[in-house]
């Protein structure tokens, strides 16, 4: 047999439907990070530093090599390049 809803219960139900859903702070970001991480097979989620290193490795490799060469040059002078080439050969 069908039950008739009281006026107060009906009012409560309508209020529940209309009430705004609030997501706890930080949850939205966490879900997004997890989704990005799980999709890493196709479009890996990368931190800004990782993006800088892994996306264009030649760029970072060139930066590091020039920095190391410059440092060695300042310590050993012009002979460092000959020393390094001699070592490699």
């Amino acid at each position: 047999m069908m039950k008739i809803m009281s006026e107060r219960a009906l009012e409560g139900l309508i209020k529940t439907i209309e009430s705004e859903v609030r997501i706890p702070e930080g949850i939205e970001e966490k879900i997004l990070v997890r989704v990005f991480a799980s999709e890493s097979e196709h479009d890996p989620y990368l931190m800004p530093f990782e993006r800088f290193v892994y996306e264009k490795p030649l760029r970072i490799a060139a930066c590091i090599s020039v920095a190391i060469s410059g440092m060695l040059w300042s310590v050993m002078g012009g002979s460092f390049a000959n020393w390094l080439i001699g070592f490699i050969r």
Partner: protein
Amino acid sequence: MYLLKVLYKSIIAPLEVFRKDHIEGRLSASIAIILITALLGSIIAPVVRFYMNKGQYEIHLHLDRMFIAFFVTIGTWLIVCISFWLWSKAFNKDLEFRQVISIWGLSYMPNLICVILYNLLSIAPELGRESNILAFILSSLFIMLLVWKAIYYFVFMRFVINTTLFEISLITMASTVLFVILMMVGFNVGIQVPML
């Protein structure tokens, strides 16, 4: 066409080819780089050196040593691939051997350029002596190739084997020992540029 596209991407945007899913032409590109590097380093370079210095010094071509170096180069690549594949199995990563060989071979691009540079210096040693600027550029290039190869290694660990920090530390420590052994074997058969 696919082969060239994969080669281009492995240099410009390695993340697009250093991934587990199937990519058309990747295995062929990988094998092509390995064969070209091995041929250049162990057969073509000694022949060129021989003909360049024939009149100046008494030198001989050791065909047997050249072919041993060629097969050792291929062998070291396979051993490194097998070790990475075994590590992936040990850490329960879903990775096939075919994926390992098709991806790790792409990391031989710095080796290939290093072989060319090294042999260029062997043929024309004055390049590194006459000009300080040129010597600086050449040294920077060698360091750049080393860093580039290291980045390929980390990309492979991070995006192909999908290791954690602990796993990558363990694999790197164990691989260092293996790499040193393979390098020593390589030097003994006349491979001057490490082929790992």
